[in-house]
Every structure is written in structure tokens, then in C-alpha cells.
């Protein structure tokens, strides 16, 4: 459904995107992970026909984004990371405006707008001025706006950014609903656990370069010879931290009071040696085991050393 071939974008001497090759199948949810300025938004803007690439090609639904922008625009619903709304319009008028912009006939609009407001849980706010909606509601209204022409592809740039936890959960539920409707979704976020639940495939981008790409299941820190370990001690926290930091196989120690989480690059024998050392120092170990890795661990492991 979405394909890029050697996609590159340069702003003067700065290369914002370097030879990006992506292929996203129809109905899949693709998560784009990367720090700010990594090239996620640039990619999404090119796919949304808002930016001309310096070189390379991008296709949506088989249409070249440069040569067939009108066809591409019919296929996509784009939600930028920051977007404004028209404050002097009511929610229904706002959606009606975009229905008009997509040339949806008048007779279909009423039912369509009601359905969309229902989908994003804003039916009760139909006649409220957009100005009076909370940020989360505006974000959901923006998502409804993306859907007025029933696009096959949704390009969502940080849709949960700036939302409180409750609004974020509501947004995620709507996205899960959209996935079940068979939409192809490309979504970026720096809140990584959110993507893990939602996405089929993940792409990690840093400094304009795609450094990892695959299904969520395949994306494990194990492929890099790293395991995530957890250690809980009864007391002597400082001593435990010293033992961990002295160990050459331990990286990125996260100390939450008596609970440690860290990356371990050694073998099973090295793990056993570390536990022996801890016990030998008289540290009362409550538990020492491998932890379930999350997307943040994957991201940190993959981007280790990139860009430095």
C-alpha cells in the first residue's frame, strides 16, 4: 500500500532523510519510532504530498506522490503532529467544511458526520464550538476529519502528543477500532509502549536513516546479543549499584529504589557470575531474573551508538 524507494530529503546541506526504503502492506499498522528531528515527520509529509523529495520515489496505493498527488490525497487521511482548528466553527460545521473540501455530496454529509462523531466519541459535542473543546477532543475531532472521505491509508504524526493519559487511552482505542476496519495506518510516536500494542511492524529511524525495520515480534533486543535483567534487593542499594556498575557486561542501569533494571551483554555464565558476586558482597538479593523487554528497551538497544 505504501512504498518508498531510496527516499531522500535535503534542506540545503542538511540531509533530513537518507535513502529510506519502506514497504507497508495493506491493512497493516506501521509504527515509526525515532527521536525528534529523526525524519519521521519529513517522511509523512512526503507521503502526504506536502513535500517534494530531493531524490527517490514514494508510492501510496501504487500512485506516485509527485506525479499523482490528487489520487494520493483521495487515498490518505493525514493528521500532522501539530494542527490548528477553526475556532469560530462548530464541530459539525468543521467536519462539513472538510466534507466539502473532499467533494462529498450534501445529501450524504449529515449521516456521515454523525457516524464520525460517534466513532470518536464526540456526538454530545456536535454543536459545540471547536474552540471550547479540550485538547484531547480537538485531537479526536482532527482524527474524524481525516476520515471524512473514508481513506484507505491514515498517516498520523504523533496523534497522542500532548494528551493526558485518559485522552491517550481513548485515542488508542479509536486507533484499534480503525485497525479492525482494515485501514492501513502509519503512525509515529515517541511513547513507545503505545505503539507496541497497536502496530504490526515497527521502523526505527534516527538521523534520517532507517536503522531497524521489522515486525514487532521480531524486534527484540536479543538480536543484538543483549538481554534485559532485573534485580531486586532488600537493602544495601548503593553497594548493589556499585557491583552492577563495576560489571563490564552491565549497561544503562535504571535504579528505582530497591529495584534495578539494566541491559546485560554477557552470556548466561556471566549472569551467574554477577549473581555470585552480589551474594558474595553480602547483598540480600530478593530476585535476579530476565525482564520482559519493552519497545523502549528495543529502541535504546538499537540506537546505541547511532549518531554519536
Amino acid at each position, binding site marked *: 500500500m505504501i512504498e518508498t524507494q531510496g527516499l531522500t530529503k535535503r534542506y540545503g546541506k542538511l540531509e533530513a532523510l537518507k535513502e529510506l526504503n519502506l514497504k507497508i502492506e495493506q491493512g497493516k499498522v506501521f509504527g515509526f519510532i525515532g527521536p525528534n528531528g529523526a525524519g519521521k515527520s519529513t517522511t509523512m*509529509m512526503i507521503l*502526504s*504530498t*506536502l*513535500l*517534494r523529495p530531493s531524490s527517490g520515489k514514494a508510492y501510496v496505493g501504487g500512485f506516485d506522490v*509527485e506525479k499523482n*498527488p*490528487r489520487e494520493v*490525497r*483521495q487515498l*490518505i487521511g*493525514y*493528521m*500532522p503532529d*501539530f*494542527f*490548528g*482548528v*477553526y475556532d*469560530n*466553527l462548530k464541530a459539525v*460545521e468543521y467536519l*462539513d*467544511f*472538510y*466534507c*466539502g*473540501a*473532499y*467533494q462529498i455530496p*450534501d445529501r450524504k454529509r449529515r449521516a456521515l458526520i454523525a457516524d464520525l462523531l460517534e466513532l470518536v466519541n464526540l456526538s454530545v459535542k456536535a454543536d459545540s464550538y471547536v474552540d471550547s473543546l479540550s485538547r484531547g477532543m480537538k485531537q479526536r475531532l482532527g482524527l474524524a*476529519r481525516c476520515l471524512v472521505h473514508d481513506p484507505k491509508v491514515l498517516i498520523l504524526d504523533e496523534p497522542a502528543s500532548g494528551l493526558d493519559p485518559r485522552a491517550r487511552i481513548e485515542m488508542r482505542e479509536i486507533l484499534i477500532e480503525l485497525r479492525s476496519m482494515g485501514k492501513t495506518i502509519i503512525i509515529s510516536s515517541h511513547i513507545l509502549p503505545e505503539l507496541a500494542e497497536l502496530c504490526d511492524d515497527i521502523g526505527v529511524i534516527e538521523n534520517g536513516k532507517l536503522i531497524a525495520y521489522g515486525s514487532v515480534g521480531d524486534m527484540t533486543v536479543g538480536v543484538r546479543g543483549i538481554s534485559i535483567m532485573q534485580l531486586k534487593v532488600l537493602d544495601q542499594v548503593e553497594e548493589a549499584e556499585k557491583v552492577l556498575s563495576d560489571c563490564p557486561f552491565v549497561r544503562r542501569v535504571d535504579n528505582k529504589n530497591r529495584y534495578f533494571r539494566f541491559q546485560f551483554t554477557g552470556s548466561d555464565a556471566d549472569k551467574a557470575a554477577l549473581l555470585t558476586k552480589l551474594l558474595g558482597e553480602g547483598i540480600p538479593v530478593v530476585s535476579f531474573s530476565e525482564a520482559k523487554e519493552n519497545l523502549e528497551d528495543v529502541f535504546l538497544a538499537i540506537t546505541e551508538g547511532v549518531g554519536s
Partner: protein
Amino acid sequence: MRGFLTNPMIIKELRERFRTGKTAWILGSYLFVMGAILFGVIYVETANKIYFRPGESRQIFILLTVIQLGMIGFIAPALTAGTISGERERQTLNVLLTTHLTPFAIVSSKMLTSLLFISLVVISSLPLYSFVFLYGGISPEQLIKIFWFFAVNIIFFGSVGVFCSARFRRTGVSTIISYGLTFLIGVGTALLTIFLWQFFEMMEWKTFDSALFPFMFSINPGFVLAEIIGEKVAPSSMTYIMEPWILFSIFYLGLSVFLLGWATRVLDPLRKRRLG
């Protein structure tokens, strides 16, 4: 007409513009200022007299017309210089550009709705002119020409505002440049014409044979307005190729089309940019 009434951009713009109290305030203030000037002048002229001469009515007409032209030069850039940059600042432009609305549709709709409002302001002042008609001194033909002349000015200064709004990212910058260009057209062309005339005279070159001066006199709004109301500003010996208001209309309407075309091009996100 159906296309106009169903254009979503026009409906949205009109909804937004006429829903706020600001619109009523602008319209009310404009009429108040114009009315105050008119009644002030009539009061002063008739305070100690028992008669009112038609010649004085004509002076009021000239005064109203000059003020109206000044107001158009002041209001048109203000209302149009933020139309597109405002969308950009509000972060709504990118979303608009991913819909089926073409850059031309966006530019022309913005232009049209701004013009509608400015036209409403000017047309709403028509009853003030009826006072002048009451006393005579002005022909209907002159009035029609004047309103045509106003329409051309509104379109041109509006186009300057829309162009600056598309070209410059910030509304503040766009507004300043729009006013700068308006000043250049309104005052700059007059100064340049007078300077060139003096220079030609000084060098003893033939000013009357040159096609430059009829053209220069015809592109300054002040000179053209004076010609329409029958006040001779240009030397009487100078002959125009065509009536100044016609040349003025052709020149500025052509320039308006060019500016709007340029604004449309600037707005196209996939346009090819020059390298380097």
C-alpha cells in the same frame, strides 16, 4: 453561482467572518467615520448661511471619494494580508493542502471572500453619496466610473495582500509589505511621475511626445481619480492614448491576475524549486 454557493472554502470563510462581532464593528466604524466627515462638512458649510450651492456639494463628493479611496488602501491590505499566512500560523494550511482543494481554489476563495467584505463596506456607504445627489453637481456616469474605479482598487490591493500573505510566512511581515506596496503604488508612482516630468523639462526633452507620461499618469490612483471627477492634474497639453481609468483598469487587473497566479504557485507544495 451554484459553484460559488457550494464552495466549502467560501462558506467557511463567510461563516467565520460574519459570525464575529469584529465584522459589525469594522462596518459600523467605517460608516461612522464617513458619515461624521460628511455631516461635519455640511454643518460647517451651512452653519451661517441660508443657502447651499451645488458647487459645494461637488466638493463634498470629492472629499468623500478621496477618503473612500484612502480607506480602501488602508482596509484592503489589512483584510487580505493575513488570509493565507493566518492559515499557516494556525497550522491549518497543510491539512487543507491534503484535501481536494487546489492551491488556486484556496487563493481565489480567500480573495473572493475578502473582496466581498470590502465591497460590502464600500456599498454600504452608498447612501452617504445620496446626500450629494440631493443637491446635484455630479453626474450618474461619474458615480458609476468612481465605483468601478473603487472595484479595481479593491481587487488590486486585495491581490497584493493575498500575494504577500502567501509569499511571507508571518502575517505581521505580510501586512507591512502589503502596506509598503500600497504606499508605493499610491504615493510612489505620483512622486516618480512628478520627478520624471521635472527631469524631462530640465533636460529640455519633449515631454508631450513621450508615451511614458500618459502611462505614468494613468497608473497612479490619485491622478486617475482626479481625471474621473474632472479635476485636471496632468498638463492640459498632454494627450492620453485611452481614457486613464480604462488604462488603469487594464493595468491593475492584469497585475492582479499575475499576483494571484504567483500566490497560487507559491502555495503549491509540490512545485519545483530552483536549486541553490
